[in-house]
């Protein structure tokens, strides 16, 4: 049991990255419109986030410094401030979207409009971040989020046409009626969602909160190499089940209810209930992840005291930032902006902000002053360098693709 709980951080981080509200819908939409022609993007994303999360976890465990410490230290106060502004924008927008996502999940269970749930969710989230132990939060929401495995079961029960799916996955490209621009737009969005900056902020800060030391490197690796692939698998299962159900019907997906339908179709009410519970846990977990990340990044940029291990009165600035983040997120939703569309925008912006976060990680992971003989090996460096190029390419392509394809609308 202890083993299982020790990877809760990795699982929660991965869930926030791979199956938060935007990804749940984006994966389902990609599955409906393109089949599994984006399967390779998920694989590429999983390898990329594993590689960089492993580095940041290692740096945090050995040196006790979280990622935004490194960003400031290596890029200087000005560039780091630009990165802070960009990351904070992405993180707060995502936080707002996740609050809406929790509301949407509750709406599916209660038929009460999600906007009425949002303030309630926000208060519960704040109380959780104010009072509840970090390990408690990650265990409850990380592990409950795993209920989304129901999508794997549903996919298997739907008796899919595996031959056609295999063909889509191995010969990727847009099907008839879709163009390459839209295809690549989805590819960039799914890739960015796998590597969102707040994942490494959260994971490395969580490592500090859990007081990992060089002795916990095994735990850190375990977290990374189990948690993120698991998150990727859940995302893939959503894509697969959506491709199986909606693909033949030539249907597109843009609401959470539609995403859940394959589970009802395959497993009835019980499956549907599990899917909704999974949505709730995953989006709430993502809301916690993004909420805490706002506090982490600001506090680490300025060198303030942060974290849930301290009494709130000893980390007053950190807790104030958390409160502001949540309030801004709620205010954003109260404009009745569609939370799902909101995350689609944030994915594009986060693609742009990625390089400034990942570059310092790669640099410091090679620094012997920091890591002694635990610096990157050849494999970590090769993978890290290749991904740095990919991340830069995605950052450059994101905005033009968004404009050309009108947010993938065609």
């Amino acid at each position, binding site marked *: 049991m202890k083993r299982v709980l020790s990877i809760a951080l990795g699982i929660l981080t991965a869930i926030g990255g791979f199956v938060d509200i935007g990804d749940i819908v984006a994966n389902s939409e990609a599955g409906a419109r393109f089949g599994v022609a984006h399967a390779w993007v998920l694989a590429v994303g999983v390898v990329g986030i594993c590689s960089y999360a492993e580095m940041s976890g290692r740096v945090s465990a050995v040196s006790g410094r979280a990622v935004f410490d490194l960003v400031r230290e290596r890029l200087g106060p000005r560039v780091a401030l630009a990165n802070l502004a960009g990351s904070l924008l992405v993180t707060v927008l995502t936080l707002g979207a996740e609050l809406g996502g929790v509301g949407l999940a509750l709406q599916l269970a209660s038929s009460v409009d999600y906007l009425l749930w949002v303030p309630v969710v926000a208060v519960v989230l704040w109380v959780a971040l104010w009072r509840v132990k970090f390990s408690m939060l990650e265990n409850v929401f990380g592990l409950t989020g795993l209920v989304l495995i129901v999508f794997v079961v549903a996919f298997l029960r739907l008796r899919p046409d595996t031959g056609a799916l295999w063909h889509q996955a191995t010969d990727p490209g847009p099907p008839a009626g879709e163009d390459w621009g839209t295809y690549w737009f989805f590819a960039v969005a799914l890739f960015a969602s796998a590597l969102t900056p707040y994942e490494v902020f959260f994971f490395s800060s969580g490592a500090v909160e859990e007081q990992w030391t060089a002795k916990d490197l095994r735990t850190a690796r375990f977290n990374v190499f189990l948690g993120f692939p698991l998150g990727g698998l859940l995302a893939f299962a959503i894509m697969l089940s959506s491709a199986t159900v909606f693909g033949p019907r030539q249907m597109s997906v843009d609401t959470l209810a539609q995403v859940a339908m394959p589970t009802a179709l395959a497993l009835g009410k019980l499956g549907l209930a599990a899917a909704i519970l999974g949505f709730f846990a995953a989006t709430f977990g993502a809301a916690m992840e993004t909420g805490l990340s706002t506090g982490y990044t600001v506090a680490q940029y300025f060198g303030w005291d942060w974290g849930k291990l301290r009494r*709130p009165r000893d980390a007053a600035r950190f807790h104030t930032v958390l409160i502001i983040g949540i309030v801004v997120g709620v205010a954003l939703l109260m404009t009745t902006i569609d939370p799902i569309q909101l995350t689609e925008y944030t994915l594009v912006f986060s693609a742009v902000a990625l390089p400034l976060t990942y570059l310092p990680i790669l640099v410091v992971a090679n620094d012997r002053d920091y890591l002694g003989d635990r610096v990157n090996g050849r494999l970590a460096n090769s993978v890290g360098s290749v991904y740095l190029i990919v991340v830069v390419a995605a950052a450059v392509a994101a905005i033009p693709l968004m404009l050309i394809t009108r947010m993938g609308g065609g």
Partner: protein
Amino acid sequence: MLVAFQLLDRQILDRDGRPVGKVDDIELGRTEVGVPYVAALLVGQQALGDRIGGALGRWIAGVARRLAPAPGRGPMRIGFDLVAGVDSAVNLSVSRDQLPDPPLEAWLRDHVIDRIPGAGHAS
């Protein structure tokens, strides 16, 4: 030691490993023959704002200055003789409690956070 690389922008921790702030700037003294030496670490948004410069930097420094308990006191100074060692952080030989309270932290603690129930409990 490389001052900009190893000191500037590093996290400062007190004797017990609690964060004090960042090395936002460094004050140099002059020896008898006029050679500069590292005299003190400057901590806080005042020093940071001055360093960032431009309109944004002036704004950051201005806000910090307004919050400061005594006007014109300048940023918080930590004498370099209090530094016990430098690794991934700058470690001090004193406790944070012996240093002046950062003004923003003190203000938010007294006016916001402490008024919320449960502020004194670690979770």
